């Protein structure tokens, strides 16, 4: 069944069940997103894709809201801009977005004040380096859940990660904070692939970014290990 609606004043016809985000794409309106990824289940977390629908009390997340007949949608109203800008400002006050290029662009687009929330408590964290393949720098984690989803039912079905904590203390957890090699992790790196902010990054890249060569580092370590006597 076809559903007719308007988006930013333009008429759109799409199949029933289409999301507002997909419908908007039909008229070349791209919705900004943070948590959304084509390969993971949309959970409507970031609310950066919210749009205004006439007659609705609250804004609607475009990634998960299905179209309905005669809906009038505004993707760039003042309310929408206000919410998007504030979300970016609050997020930027919480985590290190320096390696999230998409979010840097969004902050410029929405004229977000990068110092909007002075003295805000940040989610600081140590870089976790517990395996040969990737590091976890949760200071950069935006809690988009994609790594958990990639590890779980969306891509890998390995279930090493879970969302942990609660509220502002939300985080990505392993079982009793075990280092990755002690979990069910198989180092597929599908989590790294879907991370939007470089909180998960391959070690090759992590060291290269600091002007170091991981292959050399690890080959040195290997030599040292080989010199250790066999137990």
């Amino acid at each position: 069944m076809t559903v007719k609606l308007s988006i930013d004043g333009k008429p759109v016809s799409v199949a029933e069940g289409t999301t507002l985000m997909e419908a908007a794409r039909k008229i070349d309106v791209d919705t900004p997103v943070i948590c959304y990824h084509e390969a993971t289940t949309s959970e409507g977390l970031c609310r950066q894709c919210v749009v205004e629908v006439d007659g609705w009390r609250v804004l609607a997340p475009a990634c998960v809201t299905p179209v309905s007949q005669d809906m009038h949608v505004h993707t760039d109203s003042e309310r929408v801009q206000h919410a998007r800008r504030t979300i970016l400002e609050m997020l930027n006050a919480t985590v290190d977005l320096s390696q999230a290029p998409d979010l840097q662009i969004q902050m410029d687009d929405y004229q977000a004040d990068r110092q909007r929330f002075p003295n805000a408590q940040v989610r600081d964290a140590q870089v976790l380096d517990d395996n040969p393949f990737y590091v976890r720098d949760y200071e950069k984690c935006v809690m988009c859940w994609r790594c958990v989803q990639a590890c779980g039912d969306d891509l890998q079905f390995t279930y090493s990660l879970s969302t942990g904590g609660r509220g502002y203390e939300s985080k990505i957890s392993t079982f009793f904070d075990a280092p990755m090699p002690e979990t069910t992790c198989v180092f597929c790196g599908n989590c790294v692939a879907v991370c939007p902010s470089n909180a998960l990054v391959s070690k090759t890249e992590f060291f290269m970014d600091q002007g170091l060569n991981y292959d050399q580092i690890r080959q040195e370590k290997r030599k040292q290990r080989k010199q250790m006597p066999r137990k």
Partner: protein
Amino acid sequence: MIEAQEVVRSTCPYCGVGCQIDMYIKEDQIFRVEAPFDVAPNFGRLCAKGRFGIDFVQHPSRLKKPLIRKDIGESPRKAVGLEGFREATWEEALDLAAEKLAAIVAQHGGDAVGTFCSAKATNEDNYIFQKLVRGVLGTNNVDHCARLCHAASVAGLQLTIGSSAMSNSIAEMKDLDAFIVTGSNTTETHPVISTFLREAVVRNGAKLAVIDPRQIEMTEFADHWLRQKPGTDVAIFQAMAHVIVHEELYNSDFIDDRTEGFGEYAKSLADCTPEWAEGLSGVPADQIRDAARMYANAERAAIYWGMGISQSVHGTDNAVSLANLALITGHIGKPGTGLNPLRGQNNVQGCSDSGGLPNVFPGYQLVNDPDIRGKFENDWGIQLNPDVGLTTMEMVDAAEQGGIKAYFVMGENPMMSEPDLRHARHVMASLEFVLLQDIFFNETAEYADIILPATSFAEKAGTFTNSDRRVQLIRPAVPAPGEARDDWVILSELAQRLETELGREESAGFEFDDPSAIWDEMARLTPDFQGISHARLQREDGVHWPCPSEDHPGTPYLFEDDFPSGRGRLTPLDYRPSAELPNDEYPFILSTGRVLYHWHGGTMTRRSKLEDIYPEPTVEVHPNDAENLGIAAGDWIKVRSRRGEIQVRTLVTERSPTGTVFIPFHFAEAAANELTLDARDPQAKIPDYKMSAVALEKLN
């Protein structure tokens, strides 16, 4: 953040899944590997090897110059390290190689050369290789490691349905209703395929029966886990067939329309009751019944298997008994069904497809069929040897007996992969000439006279064909190290020199501009490939053969209307016990196989970060056995068979059943094949890597 200067799409060089990868490159360094989320077969998914393990490409120990053995000509040859070789120019190395090979051919005939092409090289490389072997050396002695992995699947499927590839595609897996995984530790050997199979279970509620002695990870997703005693697979499958026939769960229409021999087959199952199978396999009869019902009653059901089925002295029987199950239930010829041997190497399918087998030209066209041979003779403009060549293990036998004087090995490492390595080394030492073409100095190289440095997958163009017959491109991403050259280039140069040395008036044709021209020649001669070209693959990412014409979409699943053999042949079988059973002196069954983080002989993965997560040879021992032997987790122990011994570190785990130990075969310093037995399936000639008798000894 590192900005990529270039992103190059290619195909992962590890297992047969054929994952599409994007290599991110800066200053000739591959710093990241990703996968496109919208492209088959992996749809963005990768495993540790594909994502983090292709750093071997840039390992300092890559071969960069042709090497010539310093004591070339001395007999018997000794194994030597790199220090036993000197660097040479390409001119010198190729001239010498041609001279040596030509001399042997001239004196003993082409059949005195045994050749091994490569399941790691491209279709184009392998096409040229077999063209060189057939068209210049004049022998059909060409084989590759498929002999050591799925030869029995091939034999069994040829016998029953007349075709040996995976019948259905990876993309169909997530929509299965029910499936059987047997003899495949899918999560470790085909990690990305295992994600689609788990997706079928977790997201679509598909039913899964795992039939495997080891408690592999897939058992966690299984509705039924049949833990048979090693080597009793046929009994289980026969009993399942018994249940399906006895309870009339079979598909009469399919049996009537598409198969032959049902009456006799059904009769042959009379005594194969689940209780009979329970006695042999230890699997409770009711579990066998449940699994049979699950499979037979499903709307769409498929069977996936790996080395546990084929690397056995009854490998062919195993495959035949699985084919029988599919034929009586009609679970073949439709989406989401099929008989699916999961191929191990990135291009093991393609290497066979490209004629890397002793009995067939590309596309499984028989060398002993005069019409086929005539077609190739016409095209190549030369005469061809009509006799079927020798298989891998037969070449070893022939070398031992003196019939084969020289080996030409491209991109394989038989000194790790063959069973009973002590024996294999002895044979190798007796050869007159060994020519090797590879990217690293491996265990086989120690016996070579001349080593030609080749480019890796990341430095060249061409195609790989994955496990589900999907032909996909690889593209050059980084420069070749030193003077390394593409395999097809080396082969072309060598072929032309050989033709000169042998005084051939007509060249079989080795002037190619690029791999796409090689593909075009192969496609011209191979009906199944005729619709595929590199240009089309650029546009469509990948095409499943058979693809007879350019407007043909390719064939994700086979046998919709008929089998290559016409009707599927239902084949009665007898249960036979294994070749080497444990006794008092060698009380344990040794099974060998792979682990997630390593790859075959370890040549690539042990030169990668992957080495850091799994650095040592291990043996899996059941806690009960460990306790009886006084072995603790982490202890180094000696494992001994009638053929050799190795030292490995103990993993105490319930994964393998009591009385069975498992050793991965990736570690040269403790090569599992020192222990294995060269007993072969009578039809497929595949060695049994899964059943050798061994003893465990604590080290002091």
